[in-house]
């Protein structure tokens, strides 16, 4: 397993991927989210928590299949729904989207900076 590198997309609020990301385009579509319109594709999604729908696991897996998924997800607290979505996507398509919990690194992260997620789940700001 290799390291995952991408630019951080730092969300102030947690996002429910179902109802929050269009898996066909990778766009943030939650009308109530302050960062509506941002593209999640290829980014390291940094957010305090998951949110909302239990369908978010399917949306994550479908976005991996469609090539619109974030490159990795850094959370402030564990989220079973996203972790399982990523595990299924890896099982089905052999593509790994690491979902890691790193509250301190995540909180310090700035929009657009380069982030590396190691194969051991470590998160580093480059």
């Amino acid at each position, binding site marked *: 397993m290799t390291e995952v590198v991408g630019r951080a997309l730092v969300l102030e609020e947690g996002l429910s991927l*179902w109802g929050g990301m269009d898996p066909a385009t990778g766009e943030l579509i939650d009308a109530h989210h302050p960062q509506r319109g941002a593209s999640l594709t290829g980014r390291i999604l940094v957010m*305090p928590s998951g949110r909302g*729908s239990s369908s978010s696991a399917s949306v994550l897996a479908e976005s991996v*299949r469609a090539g619109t998924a974030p490159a990795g997800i850094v959370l402030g607290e564990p989220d*079973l729904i996203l*972790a*399982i979505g990523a595990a*299924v996507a890896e099982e089905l398509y052999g593509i790994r989207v690491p979902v890691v919990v790193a509250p301190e690194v995540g909180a310090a992260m700035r929009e657009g900076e380069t982030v590396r997620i190691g194969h051991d789940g470590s998160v580093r700001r480059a």
Partner: protein
Amino acid sequence: MRLVVRAAEVSGAGGLIDITRAHVDSCLYHGQASLDFVARLADGGAAVSVPTTLNVGALDLIHPELNHGDAVTAERGRLLMDRYRALGAQPTFTCAPYQIADVRPSLGEQVAWGESNAICFCNSVLGARTNRYGDFIDIAAAITGRVPYAGLHRTDARRATLVLRLAADVPAALRDSDVLFPVLGIVLGRRAGSTVAAIEGLASGQSEDRLKALGAAAASSGSVAMVHVIGSTPEAPTLDAALQHQTPDRIELVHVRDLRQARDALTTEAGNELTAVSLGTPHASLVELERYAALLGDRRVHPEVECLISTGRDVLPAASERGILDRLREAGVELLVDTCSYIAPILRDPGGPVMTDSGKWAYYAPGNISARVVFGSADECINSAVAGRVVRDEGVWEEAS
């Protein structure tokens, strides 16, 4: 089983426990990945090992003509629903399985439920125990009959650590109105995130329909999987019981201005125009259908407005027997089952403006189907459906200005 073990790692559980039931959300089509996953299960010869209900799918199988989307996607949605049925799950296709008497778990029962509103209802109102299980892990739990012993399966994690107290400026009439509950739910989700909260300041013995609306909204604006409503939910006869006799981390007031703000934010359209009214999210109960019919009385829906109520197929027989279905249909209301109007191409003019009494529908529809939304009480919705334009009745909010 690999998925259940992975879930145990994520949740830091020391072991697994048996469950008695599952409710599976994975049957709603989100793309090829949905079908690829269930095909993998079927190839491995999997079948559910505990009584398992299914959540909504992408299609109303009883009234397929209500789908206005493309035929290929509809067919794939139907195929996915069939595939889950073939694994041995019951074709309930409802987001409100707690309204089906013979599959409803009882106090203390360990289960694995998907669907955010059902999860919240299960823990809070039934006192049965589930974590927030998402797609894939829900069916994995149904097949293995096991889940990690972590989170809300454990008594200690069910303790309220946040107290939300209705402030003195919330008028009595608002406290006792249906419309308070979805709005308070939105506030709760924003304040609580994923923590267990206790709500203080409501009369005891609140109805299941009100608690359903509260939880559904809270699980949309936040990740609320359990809430104690003091005097109404089974693990909260008193605040002290909900706190498990400990001190809360936070006590916060909810003022009338917070409620107004949350209510106003659910409306994205300022005008009086209306193309549709969508009710029944989560799926309407028999009591709610009766109420909508009573609000309509002998009036009819305006010919230019599409008025839709989503409900479970399980509710249809009793509603039909009591003549409610006929009355609603005669008045021009369409009944939708097995799916919902914000996840499937049902509305003739999805852009709206669409009016709803559901906090959850109002929250998700702008993103999901690009609807412009007007949120209102059930009375306002029905009166607006009849008038053909948005009719407001500030009623319970008036004192609150």
